């Protein structure tokens, strides 16, 4: 049964291919979700340089006021965020302070899981990942295998349950390679028959992979030329962003793109204006700046949201690093972002030592549940309606944050 509907859907898609593309071209918008894995210390990204406590608690890790890029009389950017300074001043780049999940385990996996599933400690899990759920609310019939793409090799939990989601590292990699001289079309046909007959998730994902392969085949003929001399970092993050830009320009209906940047778990030897974390920040900033340059004539078509599972403690530990904290500064970039501000109250109101229910003393207070921000970003970028948001995050009464 499901096979039949799938097949008929496919043939409809194929028939309707050109008019459908024309229709989506006008209003297409992509949410690019950058996940900083490991719990990023955002206190050193959006530096609260006007706070003496920050300097007192971080004798070696604080970013000096003289080295940071001042944004206003409270905050400054880490020097490695220089490439994004202009966007902040243009009002396209902004942040919300002290965002986070209510999970108190202090575990990377719990907090990432909860955040990616759009759940909370107290509520009942709504099922699937938050982006997967959103795409499903939008209606399976509107989805193609390229509606949601994760850059990398594994599907992130946030896309769990998406009607269709693809994982890829490079577009050019996407090809089914039958032996030389062998019947390539026959191989595809045989795979389609076998995966079509499989009623489990495996069969479903197999068919989606075959569909994706066909669509992407059309793009592969021409080598990709970046615009405005955009210089992507030469690592998997940079390559991934470039592939996202390419998909956005090709207008294949990409709604959600997920990309990870790992290495933020800086328990040890974190560094300040320079050092281990500074290098990560540089990759992040240079990557996003390159994407901005490359997509300069497509700025109406994307919004970038940068999140992490939790922030880190205000004070440094004895190995010149920081341990798991709670709140973090969530950042967003794009034409639809009301940037140029760091929203939320002054960050450093550390939990007191006696409170063992927070992951150790000294984490940032949690001021804004992450779901308020996620919903607002979806509203601003992909037009999440209030009816949809009630289905997406059923356990919370959403409020406006002012980021979009």
């Amino acid at each position, binding site marked *: 049964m499901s096979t039949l509907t799938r097949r008929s859907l496919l043939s409809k898609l194929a028939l309707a291919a050109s008019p459908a593309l024309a229709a989506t071209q006008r209003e297409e918008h992509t949410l690019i979700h950058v996940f900083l894995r490991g719990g990023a210390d955002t206190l050193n990204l959006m530096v609260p340089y006007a706070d003496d406590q920050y300097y007192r608690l971080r004798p070696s890790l604080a970013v000096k006021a003289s080295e940071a890029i001042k944004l206003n009389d409270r905050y400054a950017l880490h020097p490695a965020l220089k490439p994004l300074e202009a966007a902040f001043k243009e009002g396209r780049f902004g942040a919300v302070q002290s965002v986070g999940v209510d999970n108190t385990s202090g575990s990377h*996996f719990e907090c990432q899981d909860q955040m990616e599933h759009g759940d909370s400690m107290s509520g009942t899990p709504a099922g699937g990942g938050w982006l997967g759920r959103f795409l499903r609310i939008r209606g399976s019939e509107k989805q193609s295998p390229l509606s949601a793409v994760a850059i990398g*090799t*594994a599907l992130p939990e946030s896309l769990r349950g998406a009607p269709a989601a693809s994982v890829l590292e490079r577009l050019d990699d996407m090809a089914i390679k039958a*032996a030389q001289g062998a019947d390539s079309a026959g191989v595809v046909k045989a795979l389609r028959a076998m995966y079509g007959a499989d009623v489990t998730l495996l069969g479903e994902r197999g068919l989606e992979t075959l569909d994706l392969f066909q669509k992407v085949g059309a793009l592969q003929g021409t080598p990709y030329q970046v615009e405005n001399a955009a210089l992507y970092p030469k690592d998997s993050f940079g390559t991934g962003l470039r592939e996202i830009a390419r998909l956005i320009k090709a207008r294949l209906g990409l709604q959600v793109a997920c990309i990870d940047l790992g290495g933020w778990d800086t328990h040890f030897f974190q560094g300040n204006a320079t050092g281990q974390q500074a290098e990560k920040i540089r990759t992040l900033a240079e990557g996003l700046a390159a994407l901005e340059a490359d997509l300069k004539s497509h700025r109406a078509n994307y919004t970038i949201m940068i999140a992490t599972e939790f922030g880190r403690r205000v004070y440094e530990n*004895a190995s010149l690093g920081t341990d798991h904290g709670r709140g973090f500064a969530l950042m967003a970039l794009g034409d639809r972002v009301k940037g140029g501000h760091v929203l939320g109250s002054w960050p450093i109101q550390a939990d007191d030592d006696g409170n063992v*229910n927070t992951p150790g003393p000294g984490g940032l207070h949690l001021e804004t549940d992450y779901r308020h921000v996620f919903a607002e970003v979806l509203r601003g970028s992909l037009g999440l309606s209030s009816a949809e948001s009630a289905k997406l995050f059923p356990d919370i009464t959403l409020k406006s944050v002012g980021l979009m």
Partner: protein
Amino acid sequence: MPTSRRSLLKTSAFGCGLAALASCERITTAVNREFLGEAVPTELHPPEGQEIDPDFHLLSRAAFGPWPGDVQRLKAMGQAAWIEEQLHPESMADTACNLRAERFESLYFSAGDAYEFRKPVLRDEITRHSLLRAIYSRRQLFEVMVEFWTDHLNIDLEKGDCIYLKPSDDREVIRAHALGNFYELIRASATSPAMLVYLDGKTNKVRKKTDDQPNENYARELMELHTMGVHGGYSQKDVREAARCLSGWTFDRNRFLAMNQSESFFKPDWHDDGKKTVLGQPIAAGGGAGDLDRLVEIVCSHPSTASFMALKLCRRFVSATPPEGLVKRVAAEFTRTRGDIKCLLRLLLSSPEFQASQGQLLKRPFKFMVSAIRALAADTQAEKSVLEPLQRMGHGLFQYPTPDGYSDDELPWMGTLMWRWNFGLALASGNQPGVRVNLWPLRKSLNAGKKTSAWFAHLIGRKPTEAEFKATTATDDPQTVGLILASPAFQRC
């Protein structure tokens, strides 16, 4: 017979020393094929029932899939005897595999001395070694458990100095205890230089008269991932207390005047020697280095550890949602035997729940690849070109960045099916660089000339459905075999 084998080996080892490496590898292959049991048996009778054959099933889970002839051998000796044999790997000669896998020098050095090697060499050798053992070792259950513990006590080569330290961790923690005792495994891992670096225990210090805060990283993962599970009933305070117990254990390869710089050691002046309470159990002040043993005893004996490990084993060996009754029995066995890994596996593999779970698991890419190579009795030295597809499938060895290890869930592996298909198709048609496949001996033994059913039964352990038969019937054997390797049925086990 064994004597002649041994003397033959000596000769070939001499030959290896003299000949260039490439020809040495050719000699190894020739010797293995001719004398050491790697050859395809002259007759094969693949199981052609409706359901996956029970012996094929056991070999798909307690091994990385059958090598041609394994099913027959298992049928002849019976499941119980086969399981016992596998639980005592030392009882099995593994000469053919050793010839392939025992040539990586860096794997024999101590933690401190491995710094002599360049990083690419270290990366290359440990990865190739693991792949070769999984493919060619007769001690299959041992290798399956090595993979299990490597995930459970995951260490990413790329963090800090882990690349220098993982070879000794692989040898002295993972392989030394793979079928041993869980408490001893955890104790060994806690002071393994690689783990001390990976989870920052190396810098966990609480010096007197300072306001040093302990580094909680390892203490947390010890409870969350290695023993009790995230909802195992520990509090944030327990994590801190455990970190205090562990403070002072460190590793320093430049230690001045040390007898053995390769080992981790306890630095009393970094240790918080005050009184601690972990999971409600007091640890008296002044315990020094002994705090670690107390801590390991307390967390491993906690009831959550028995259930957490039972569930994890059942998920790896039985199903993503294993029957509760089985998990409970394995947990009780864990408690009864204080973590005797052999006893847990014996119970698990001979349980009716295991028997009834054919085809319920998705092969992770490593198993997919190894089982395909084994089924075709293919010849490889596990060069880079063979490891590269594994990378694309999202399963690069020793590369998982975070301490939870590669997932046992299905979903994370579903986005890379295309690379599996391409690997299967390339392998069967002889186009996978770094692997030599010869379908002729198999075809002859299976009596399979263009017979889809025989190939299917050989690779999947049952006869094909009508749809499978139709889809995999192709113009030539390589395409048929490639399509079977790419089929949904071969992705499962």
